[in-house]
């Protein structure tokens, strides 16, 4: 099982790196999304894949019984998924706003911040495809 997941994580990382190196902003954001999911799977795998009982402690005991599953990686992943989802939503909106303003999604043509303010108007013709 570890081997299958390791290969899957590797494939996810490779595809996210491929997407991150693309020019289109949408693909770059998708690359970040895939990368965060790859990382989540990696944390899951690093927490050891064991079949175990639910991590619940008997009401009269102070220590859990042997052979329970490790709940911590799942708690970490849950947190990371929520954060990742929020950031993904934010970056999608950000890119949409940028597209509305500039009609441009090509990261190579993103020069708005580089030009002095009074010259921004001149460069507006070259965006978009």
């Amino acid at each position, binding site marked *: 099982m570890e081997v299958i997941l390791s290969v899957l994580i590797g494939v996810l990382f490779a595809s996210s790196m491929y997407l991150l190196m693309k020019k289109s902003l949408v693909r770059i954001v998708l690359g970040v999304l895939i990368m965060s999911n790859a*990382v989540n799977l990696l944390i899951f795998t*690093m927490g050891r894949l064991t079949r175990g009982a639910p991590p619940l402690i008997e009401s009269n005991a102070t220590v859990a019984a042997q052979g329970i599953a490790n709940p911590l990686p799942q708690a970490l992943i849950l947190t990371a998924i929520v954060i990742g989802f929020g*950031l993904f939503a*934010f970056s999608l909106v950000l890119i949409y706003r940028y597209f509305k*303003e500039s009609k441009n999604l090509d990261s190579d043509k993103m020069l*708005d911040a580089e030009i002095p303010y009074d010259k921004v108007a001149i460069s507006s013709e070259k965006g978009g495809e």
Partner: protein
Amino acid sequence: MGNTLLIFPILLPMLTGAIALMAYKSTGAQKIISLFGTIIQLIFAGWIFSEVYSEGILVIQMGNWMAPFGITLVADLLGAVMVLISGIMGFAVAVYSMGDIDEKREKFGYYPLFHILLMGINGTFLTGDLFNMYVWFEVMLISSFALLALGNGRDQLDGAIKYVIINLFSSAVFLLAIGILYGMTGTLNMADLAEKIALVENTGLVTAVSILFMVSFGIKAAVFPLFFWLPASYHTPPIAISAIFAGMLTKVGVYVMIRMFTLIFIGDTGYTHTILLWIAGLTMVTGVLGAAAQMEVRKILSFHIISQIGYMIMGLALYTPIGIIGSVFYIVHHIIVKTNLFLIGGVASKLVGSYDLYKMGGLYRYYPWLGVLFLIPAFSLAGFPPLSGFWAKFTLMYAAVEIESWTILAVALVVGLLTLFSMTKIWANAFWAPLPDNHEANTSDFTKRISKVHLFYLVFPIVLLATLTLVIGLNPQPFYDFSMDAAQQLLSRTEYIEAVLRP
């Protein structure tokens, strides 16, 4: 109060932000809430600092879960001084914001976001748990994203996208490194990690993970090959936002780097700290050369952040007691000076209507006091005696001489000179040169550009920070002694570990 104090630097900004959000209809009320919030926060930060200084490390286990299992908040000397500095910067920038931020941004939640940003920064300084640090990073990042994009200007959105994407990547790498480290050691508590990391047999993998951390924090701190996002984005938002970013955010990266590479990853210092030394030298050189090529005030200052980060990393990389002393001193000095320079740049551009050095001029003629206020942080940044930057640089140079690391010494000296070159460039073009002939404002109009009240909001924090620079510069001994204690604590580690795990 004792240990319970530690939750206040996190709780207070959150409350202030929430209350300010509830008063979203009245920007006037938001201003007052924000100002009082930062004052209370500063008082508590000072209290924590004095407690840590007199009583030793403060530790609190959240929810009363014992140390390696629950989330721990720790304030050692370095953490406490960072919280104090963040309190001072929060106050200074909150005052400045009242004169700088336009009404549209205020309506769209500038003040709540500002306080959530402070909450994330303080959380990162205080946490003793690696995953919790990731969460605080995200709190800090999401509010910085929103602050950067607030206003929806095209240049701002452009800068924000570059900033957001690289930081999301850096966070993913951080989380990746945390995951692998957890798999190897089975713990996330930093004090516990410091002990358990020595037991890991596969030292090669530990070094690999340390490099992952270095890449992630390197992006946040803007070190040599990873700094491109900073000059692409820091000049786009209003200057109050730029100033708090320039002062605090990259320094958070430096802080966690110092924390990780003095507490946890010290197994193979010959390898990791040599890489850090190279990074430090190259960061200094590229940053200062980038600044030399720019003619826009905020861009020059942005590039200088990068070159100054190199000095802080240099102290860490030398990994001698004096080197760490230098780094701690440098961070404290740098945050004050750099924030101040951004604030002054903002005032200057408000007065002449531009950040472009070609279009600026005449400031010394009409506003000689602004010239004096500029010279204090500018010369301090360049390392002129007797200002704070001189003592910071002197300590680092001494550390380099002590272990005969001549190359880095030469680099640091030359970069100091080039820093002076950039500062004189701003001085000559914006302050000394006459206003360009075709300047849109005629001079009588131009001297009355800002109302008296706004000018007070803008100048008060500048005077405050300049005074701090002078105090550190003219009376460095207590600050040096403090840095020495902080460095001692960082290098010996046992005090931190014992305080967290075996109180």
